[in-house]
């Protein structure tokens, strides 16, 4: 598949936003239980603003994926069957919940209200992870995506980057929580790394179920395409091929394998709770996530490509 920057930005930005929200709420719940000193109001308010900014940026990016963005409102119609429609409903709902959550903290409406709003936001946040990932995982003939590892990795990678960002936020607004958040970010990053490695391992062993023989229905082991019906390219040759060299794809894989966990983990480990190294860690991890998502799309081999192997 051709990696679309709109979708790469959408999934990585909202993933980080969702992870950050989960971090905020986790800190609040733990603080409410009395295990941790409650951070100040600023931590939650600035956090909610940051979550909203990430979600809004992702939403904005997604509009660039549409041919007719002015009709985007129509996408809420088929939530019964389409994961994309469900995402289009859950994302604004989650943004609304985060907004109310932030306002509740800003107005200091009380722990009860913010805890309940946070619980509602958490449900929507998890639902959004599922919706986003299932858009890809539900397509059964895109075998690289059709696995439970897809939703798992969307959740883990998003959460890991969100917790790294939360550690940075804590370093600026609530230093007491920085260390715990950094440790959580490291743990989640390690889990995400394992999940992504598992997906890579699985996909390396995949055997495509469709072959040229099933594509044109001629039962013969040796079939070669001689003409695809046109010479100047079409939607099918543009949308479903990444058009990059094998080296580029391998470079993207190496980049994300270095950047989604090992590099930020090193920086996190030696950050000493200072804001600047934490910012570097997040920047590295986010760059890794961009490469990871690019590779996620580039790696997927659509069966329609069987029909477009030779120009003439």
């Amino acid at each position, binding site marked *: *598949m051709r990696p679309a920057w709109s979708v790469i930005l959408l999934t990585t930005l909202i993933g980080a936003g969702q992870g950050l929200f989960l971090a905020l709420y986790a800190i609040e719940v733990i603080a409410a239980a009395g295990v941790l000193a409650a951070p100040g109001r600023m931590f939650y308010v600035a956090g909610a603003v940051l979550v909203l900014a990430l979600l809004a940026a992702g939403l904005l990016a997604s509009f660039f*994926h*549409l*041919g*007719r*963005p002015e*009709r*985007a409102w*129509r*996408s*809420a*119609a*088929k939530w019964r*069957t*389409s*994961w*994309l*429609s469900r995402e*289009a409903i859950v994302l604004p709902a989650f943004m609304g919940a985060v907004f109310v959550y932030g306002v509740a903290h800003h107005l200091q409406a009380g722990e009860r209200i913010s805890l309940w709003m946070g619980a509602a936001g958490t449900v929507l946040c998890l639902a959004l992870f599922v919706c986003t990932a299932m*858009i890809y995982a*539900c*397509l*059964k*003939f*895109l075998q690289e995506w059709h696995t439970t590892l897809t939703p798992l990795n969307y959740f883990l990678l998003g959460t890991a980057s969100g917790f790294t960002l939360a550690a940075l936020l804590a370093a600026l607004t609530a230093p007491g929580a920085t260390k715990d958040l950094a440790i959580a970010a490291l743990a989640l990053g390690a889990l995400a790394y394992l999940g992504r490695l598992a997906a890579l391992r699985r996909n390396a062993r995949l055997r495509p*179920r*469709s072959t*040229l023989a*099933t*594509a*044109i*229905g*001629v039962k*013969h082991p*040796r*079939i*070669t*395409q*001689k*003409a*695809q*019906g*046109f*010479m*100047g*390219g*079409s*939607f*099918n040759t543009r*949308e*479903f091929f990444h058009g990059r060299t094998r080296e580029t794809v391998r470079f993207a894989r190496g980049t994300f394998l270095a950047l989604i966990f090992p590099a930020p983990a090193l920086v996190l480990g030696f950050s000493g709770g200072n804001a600047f190294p934490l910012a570097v860690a997040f920047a590295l991890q986010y760059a890794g996530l961009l490469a990871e998502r690019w590779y996620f799309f580039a790696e997927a081999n*659509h*069966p*329609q*490509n069987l*029909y*477009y192997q030779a120009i003439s």
Partner: protein
Amino acid sequence: MTQLALVIDLNVCVGCHACVTSCKEWNTAGSAGPLTDQNPYAKDPTGTFLNRVQTFEVGEYPDTQTVHFPKSCLHCEEPPCVPVCPTGASYKRPEDGIVLVDYEKCIGCKYCAWACPYGVRELDQQQKVMTKCTLCVDRIHDVSLPERDRKPACVLACPTHARLFGDIHDPASEVSAAIRENGGYALMPEWGTHPANHYLPRRKTQFRIHPDELKRVDNPLKVDGKLPKPAPGEPALDDVTTW
């Protein structure tokens, strides 16, 4: 329930692309149009087509077969492109089983094209909506046309009659008989999409020569038999007597 479909006979398709041009001609002006082109007369021409003809070579030289393979939307009975559409723009008509796109609702998200394993949906670069074969829905039900013209443009254009059109759920139809009697098959059956369009395989064409065709043993029907000669003085008449 009716399920209209094409049955394409790979045994007689010669790869002339008449169905491609005829499809483009009808549909760019019809309800599915315009099917726009970009750089049509310059470098890298591209454009939207609802039907393509591809060519494959089967086997190894010198024992090869050239298979011309027309490809358009298969109007699946379990279309994977329909449930994924977030707006309901992609739908399957219950009355005749045709899968269509409502251009007024399509947001151009391309998700249906991702969800189609056959690669038969093309996003129009100018309209920015998804286009696909409509089985010429604007002509097959048009009662103002003579009955014999109420067929998809590609079917009418095919010079070798490689394309048949009809209701595959009606066992008495021409297409059902063709599928049944000539080993009609569906593409990529592994995904459970149950395509309505079927293909008829290449068949070994055998030419049987009977001995009496090599050597004329007789004149069994007596069609060129000599007519009796008229008696001298009688008039010679065509059909009755010989000259």
